[in-house]
């Protein structure tokens, strides 16, 4: 009988050659089965141990086990090699990354809402609450309480839709100043976005319905500088970090001092002489603001000698027109998918 050692050594060599020759995982597994499987060559050799004299059997068993260990190590090594080779090969794969991505079922928020959300979010971060209110309002909230008594010429400036002698569609969101202050003692810090109505014929710059964003801060120690600070921050939130804001004297019955608020034209940066957005002035008019009139504070039971406050009212469509460079305000109510998706 051939010496076991010789036998195992030859087996190992053949095995090593076969492992080396295995080109993929399947071939490698076939090699494993042929040698180390239940009916493999090692099993055949193991069975032959029984023919040996008893004193030699343990030694022979150990020799076989050692050989198996070596073979399994070889297998493992080859396996690792093959795997590494496959990974390497997969790195060569190239797909067309420009192929259309599978579109998700995702909708969009209206640009007017996005402007309102960004503005309100800014104020909420500074401790303001956001309040909503009715669109059909008594003249008391729209005018009387805002220091615009009957016969005041300013009533005509708000060319309003009337439902009856005392009810009208609110021409501004300022009624929310009164409603909020009547419910809450100072300090009051709110923004009030919402739909408003004025009898404007519809054209590229006007709709008879629009959205306003009202802001109101009343507390002790509130001054005009705070209005400037907050509105400068708002413009930078909406239009960019380098926006400048300009206040010009103006007149509103419910504020004194009053101001018109302008911001640098985000389209031309105040540089182009023929800018379609600002007409070359470099400034965009945003709306009115000012220190709350003492009569308004008194109307809600506040003491104007103790608290002071400011308010502003900006048109949301106007902000959206400027922010998204929209040419015609009617596009906001057209329901055109292309419009929504371009601005989404």
């Amino acid at each position, binding site marked *: 009988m051939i010496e076991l050692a010789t036998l195992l050594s030859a087996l190992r060599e053949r095995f090593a050659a076969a492992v080396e020759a295995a080109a993929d995982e399947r071939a490698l597994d076939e090699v494993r089965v042929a040698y180390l499987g239940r009916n493999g060559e090692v099993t055949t050799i193991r069975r032959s141990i029984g023919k040996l004299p008893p004193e030699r059997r343990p030694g022979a068993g150990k020799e076989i086990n050692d050989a198996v260990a070596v073979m399994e190590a070889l297998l493992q090594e080859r396996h690792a090699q093959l795997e590494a080779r496959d990974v390497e090969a997969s790195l060569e794969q190239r797909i067309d990354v420009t192929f259309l991505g599978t579109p998700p079922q995702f909708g969009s928020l209206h640009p007017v809402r996005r402007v309102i959300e960004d503005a309100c979010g800014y104020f909420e971060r500074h401790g303001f609450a956001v309040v909503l209110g009715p669109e059909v309002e008594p003249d008391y909230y729209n005018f009387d309480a805002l220091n615009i008594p009957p016969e005041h010429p300013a009533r005509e400036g708000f060319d309003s839709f009337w439902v009856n002698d005392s009810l009208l569609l609110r021409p501004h969101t300022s009624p929310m100043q009164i409603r909020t202050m009547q419910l809450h003692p100072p300090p009051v810090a709110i923004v009030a976005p919402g739909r408003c109505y004025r009898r404007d014929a519809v054209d590229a710059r006007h709709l008879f319905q629009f959205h306003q964003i009202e802001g109101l801060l009343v507390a002790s120690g509130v*001054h005009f500088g705070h209005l400037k600070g907050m509105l400068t921050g708002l413009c930078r939130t909406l239009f960019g970090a380098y926006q400048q804001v300009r206040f010009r004297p103006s007149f509103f019955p419910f504020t004194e001092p009053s101001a018109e608020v302008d911001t640098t034209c985000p389209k031309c940066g105040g540089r182009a002489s023929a800018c379609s957005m600002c007409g070359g002035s470099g400034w965009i008019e945003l709306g009115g603001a000012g220190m709350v009139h003492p009569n308004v504070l008194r109307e809600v039971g506040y003491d104007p000698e103790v608290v002071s406050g400011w308010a502003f009212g900006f048109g949301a469509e106007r902000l959206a027109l400027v922010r998204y460079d929209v040419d015609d305000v009617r596009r906001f109510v057209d329901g055109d998918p292309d419009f929504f998706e371009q601005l989404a």
Partner: protein
Amino acid sequence: MRIPISWLREYVDVPAESQAIAERLAMLGFPVAEIVRRPAIENVVVGRISSLERHPNADRLNLCRVDAGADAPLTIVTAATNVAAGQVVPVATIGARLPHLQIERRTMRGIASEGMLCSPDELALPPEWFEADGIMQLDAESTPGEDVVALLGLADDVLDVEITGNRVDAMSVIGLARELAASYRVPLRLPSFENPGRGEPEPLARVALESSDCSHFVLQRFDGLRATLGAARTRVRLALCGVRPINNVVDVSNYVMLETAQPLHVYDATHVAEQRLIVRDARPGERLLTLDGIERRLTPAALVVADEQGALGLAGVMGGAASEVGAQTTAILLEAATFAGARVRRTAQLFGLRTEASTRHEKSLAPALAEIAASRAAQMLLGMGARAYAPVAAGEQATPRAAVSRRRDDVTRLLGITLDDARIAGDLTALGCSVVASDGHLEIGAPAWRNDLAIAADFVEEVARMEGYDAIVAAMPTVASHEISSREYELEAGAARTMCALGYHETITYSLLGARSDNAVELRNPLSEDHRYLRTEIAPALLAQLARLAHPYRLFEIGHVFADEGGLVAETPVLAFAVAVERSGEPPWRDVEFLRCKGDIETLVRVLTGRRPRVERAERRGLHPGKCAALLVDDVPVAAFGRVDPREERAYAAPFALYAGSIRLDRLPEPLVPRYRPPSRYPSTYRDLALSVGAEVSAESVEATTTQAIGDICTAVRVFDEYRGPQVERGRKSLAVRATMRRFDGTITDEEADAAVARAVEALHKRLGATVRV
């Protein structure tokens, strides 16, 4: 208001050009809408026509000898027909530049012309307001050779200034000149406001105020007048301001109005009975022929100025034709009155009139302006050779308003900047205020011509305007905590974001509609019939937007709907959505898109409230009677949706199947905070059932019955398939149901599960007539 810069400069030396002046005015609160640039005009001088003869070679041409200030007279050929010897006219000399031409030496029919006589048109003046038929006429006393362009301000810029409603005093040359003088801190040069009639013994005219809507009335008589062409510079200034020149007398009244803001009116004295004017309500049925040639039927709502015989004019709006100053006029009555703004506005509205006078009166002028304007007009009329009588005044005398006493720290308190008393006093006195500092307080008096300065904040604004709003330093406020809730807004914002995630696009439609629906609120003054009613629902407008599209789409809108409830307006915030999808060939008992909508709206309600809504069959106007459902939260109906009624779907002419629904945001309860329950550590098991039930049996009832019969160990019961067809009896349907079960205290056994299902089968049979299919 249009104001020629040259007129402003007459009263104030502004060290700036028109662009800078416009910017300064804007920062003072008077934005300049436009700087009207006049065309360049050069080398036009005053010329006196010394002689005139027919051109020897042309019938239609004249030869003029013109003294234009040079050593020798000029020979000028003209085709104009309104020229005569002795006239003083504008002459464009050789080399002159006019808007549309350059003057060169020209030979006309053999005679060299050394210039051109100018028509108003050639000087860029509206010819219909001037000598429409030929050469412009200058004042007889003008000096030949003087530069006409400078004399008349023909080439100077005109500012179109916007004046806010509180500053009627600044709707005037002097008002804006005063603002600029104060801002630049340069002197203001005012004309004399001494009335030359003061000291005359006889007023000759009288006034009676029979209405409280006239607080002050100055009346003054002038004799020795002849109504002729107005002075050239006056006419040009009026025209540049947009006011039509009429005659020398009327031009004075308009000129003074533009200067002082106080409208004046002149009456031909011979047409005023007893020289006595009465301010009163118009009488019912009274008639008045106004200056625009329209006969107007008056009502007592109108305020008139009248004499004993009847109305002479609409107070503060427009005069009457009967007392118009014209060629025959030799004596006039000059009116400078203070009318109540609201009354003038109502009177003007009554007749659809809006005049230079009414736009000023309706803003309520300060009474002091009446005296100022009358005096200024008297000076000018005297300059025209008139004799002035003593002015008479009726009504309250213009008394200075009481000074306002204020804490020193007002400016700091409202503006956030600190200025010393001297600085504040300097700002206010520059504007004509009086300021006295006395221990801790400032006593501030408003100037007589301003009626908008009454409270401390008014004076703070004046200080801010003088310092410039740019001087106020931006600062961030620290907002103290408060109890005001943002819940409604957060709900809307959350709803919008969820709909967006569900694939819906937000849109905005009009709240005002043309079609009336039940309980719609009607507007009293709609813009058009298309927008007469407030919407009672939103979905139709969404469907109309969808119907215009060429592809499937999903839209939503958040807004208010309105209903008339017995004269009160009920207003509800809702979210409405509409869906257009390809039509499918599904069997009549199945509608996959309905289920998708249902899934969407259930998800929305769950996200917003933390609750699973109950869904039940419902009927809603506009929706398919068999494909409509309502959603209930805590037994309150919060939403409804469904397939659009096929009859209405046809009306939209959409090539798609349409679905719509809406959610009442006001009915959604505060969100419930979900509580976590750990899952069982033991495995669950399930059993599937194939049931045959009547076609009308709902999936929900099968699920509920099964759940109840299985009891505690039930995790979920789902009807996951429905089938009708040849293998199923008519009037019945086949349902596939999966019931999942588990225990928390051990692994559930097959015997337990089988027993539970057996209980369910029995209950389903008993209550719903269900049989198990084999």
